[in-house]
């Protein structure tokens, strides 16, 4: 495939790249860098590394919050229990399904919205951007309740509005089955987070150099060709960052499920499973092990995106 991007020389070999010897100035700059970033790093370690390590430690114990005296070391037993349990794999499948469906739909919708925002008349652009962003400003729990009330059989209007569609009647119980319940969960998630993805894509769209577009136009490329050969390749980093953030986010889905089904009819996500073990059952050991596994999966996804798809986070933020 031939694509048109600007040569990467600028990024890989900065003109001011230092040689093998570090000058005094570079050293003092590095020191200043540590001084500036140090406090933030310390806070990050305190609020993220400490709980993660604590969870890893707790996951090796049989430990119930209401029975601390009988806490005992069980090694990796909690992990064995979880990984040999059907419930874990069902939750995993549900979480993966929600992630794939929502992220895929959001990407397409987000692109469409980003294009609309980019090309809209300048007079209505601010209004349009604000309007598109509104769902993202809504708290997830609130949005989940709104969608639940809309679809619930006693308070909802969906059944009467869409009664003309085949398969929907006054008696359709959306939260009564796995498929239909997950559909509503996905719809709520898509509605709420598409603005986020479209905003990231809009930033990417703005980075596509206009000269390339014009050159392609002069060469007689159609709109579709320009999109495929110019716009998308130049936006790759932005797309990947948007996908990465949304995938990580979607994988932790909790609020909508908690509000809409509370995990009934096999709609439990992995986060919900961790909640149930830790908060409801008070089995800190088992729950920590679920959390650690969830953490590992999320790290895996991030690694896959960054190494596998070669996403350069710095470049996407315009630091390259």
């Amino acid at each position, binding site marked *: 495939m031939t694509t048109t991007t600007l040569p990467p020389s600028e990024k890989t070999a900065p003109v001011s790249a230092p040689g093998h010897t570090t000058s005094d100035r570079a050293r003092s700059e590095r020191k200043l860098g540590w001084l500036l970033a140090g406090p933030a790093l310390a806070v990050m370690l305190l609020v993220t590394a400490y709980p993660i390590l604590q969870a890893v430690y707790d996951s090796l114990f049989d430990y119930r*919050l*209401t029975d601390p005296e009988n806490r005992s070391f069980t090694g990796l037993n909690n992990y064995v*229990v979880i990984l040999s349990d059907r*419930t874990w794999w069902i939750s995993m499948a549900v979480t993966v399904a929600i992630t794939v469906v929502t992220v895929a739909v959001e990407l397409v919708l987000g692109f469409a919205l980003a294009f609309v925002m980019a090309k809209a008349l300048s007079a209505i652009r601010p209004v349009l951007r604000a309007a598109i962003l509104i769902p993202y400003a809504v708290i997830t729990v609130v949005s989940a309740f709104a969608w639940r009330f809309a679809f*619930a059989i*006693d308070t909802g209007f969906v059944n009467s509005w869409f009664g003309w569609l085949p398969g929907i009647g006054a008696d359709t119980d959306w939260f009564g089955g796995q498929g239909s319940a997950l559909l509503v969960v996905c719809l709520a998630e898509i509605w709420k987070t598409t603005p986020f993805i479209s905003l990231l894509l809009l930033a990417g769209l703005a980075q596509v150099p206009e000269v390339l577009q014009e050159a392609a136009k002069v060469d007689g490329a159609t709109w579709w060709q320009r999109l495929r050969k110019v716009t998308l390749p130049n936006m790759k980093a932005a797309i990947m960052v948007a996908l990465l953030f949304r995938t990580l986010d979607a994988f932790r889905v909790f609020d909508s499920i908690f509000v809409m089904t*509370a995990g009934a009819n096999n709609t439990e996500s992995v986060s919900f499973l961790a909640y149930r073990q830790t908060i*409801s059952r008070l089995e800190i050991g088992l729950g920590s092990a679920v959390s650690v596994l969830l953490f590992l999966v999320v790290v895996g996804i991030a690694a896959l995106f960054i190494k596998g798809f070669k996403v350069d986070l710095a470049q996407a933020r315009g630091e390259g």
Partner: protein
Amino acid sequence: MPDEQTGRDDAVRGGRAGLFRQRRWRRALAGAAAAGVLGSTLAACGGGSGGVPTLTWYINPDAGGQTEIAARCTEAAGGRYRIETATLPREASAQREQLVRRLAANDTSIDLMSLDPIFVPEFAQAGFLAPVPPELAGRVTEDVVPAAVETSTWEDQLVAVPFWSNTQLLWYRKSVAEAAGLDMTQPVTWDQVVAAAQDQDKLIGVQGIRAEALTVWFNALIESAGGSIIAENSTDPEQVTLGLESDAGIRATELMRDISNSGQTGPALSTANEDTTATGFESADGGFMVNYSFVYARALGKVEDGTMDQATVDDYGWTLYPQVDEGTESAPPYGGINLGVGALSEHPDLAYDATECITSTENQAYYFVHDGNAASDTTVYDDPEVLEAFPMAETIRDSLEQAAPRPLTAYYSEVSGGLQREYHPTGSVDPERTPREATEFITAVLRKEQLL
């Protein structure tokens, strides 16, 4: 405001930098002043009124009755203590989560707790409850319905103080029962209710949602059939023996399936909670339902708002919970609130004094009339005011007398959660398979060999 005004004048004279300096200085001064005021207010709270100890009572949300009782008891204490209330989340499970987290973290601010009876054993076994003074135990259990005492007891010791009690009645539309030829003056069975509803094509309201309400329903069925979810109890989770596979357990499963598949339970049984059921009963299709007494107050409220006809409320009838086997007394669901005193409270003696005031006959009667929560003290049911406000009060008392609590175990969440997983959706349970699978599953969860 003059201060604001002066600031502006200064700014005009002193320019921009002056304005900022001025504002910053003023803000700092205001902050210091606010801190001073706050400090003196707090001081007034703590010791200003002569060092009166403050008891914090963690309450479940209600219509304001507990806060009023707290005020009354503060007054009655004559300066020995003050009671302040702190409101817990609405869901019983969330109330437990918050209290357990606080107690496990040694929170000394918890003096009094409004506890759902199902969580009393867990709190008691974890050592979260201060021991009940022996001389008090006799007084607070006098004339109290048996289930309330039972749920306040753990390992033969009273560990909590019974406050109010809740039970489910069988609600019916008089017109429907009459048309079906069902004599409601006598106790009826589930089979009769199903047949009457089918005959008239009306709804039977039961709670099939995968939530605590499902455990409530199943427990009432198995207890009415003469069995129990937990056949042999133990403080060691691995020694708990379940009674789901007993004849009563199989009968309850069978009945649950048949009621669910009777065609009269409405379109959303698998998500139906107490409110859904009440909504169905209020509709033109309403026939029968098992539910708590809030449905009556709810109907009266709707009449007042003009969203329901008086004729509909006049059609409401109530009787004891349906029987499983004809002639065998039913075991209606039991709920309510017991009062616990935090083990880390700085004033456990005063807190127990306060429980006696809170659960006095007058306060229980007030709470019944004001908030609609039935008393655990049977003498309250002789109060003319109660009888006037609640025409079904006598039925409630009778129902409470024969009510059966849900399993009393420190591992209640595991048992109830496991049950809900296996018995949901209620229409798909199989008397041959489900009791066995549920027993295996719950046992594995109790042994920490499976996730929930």
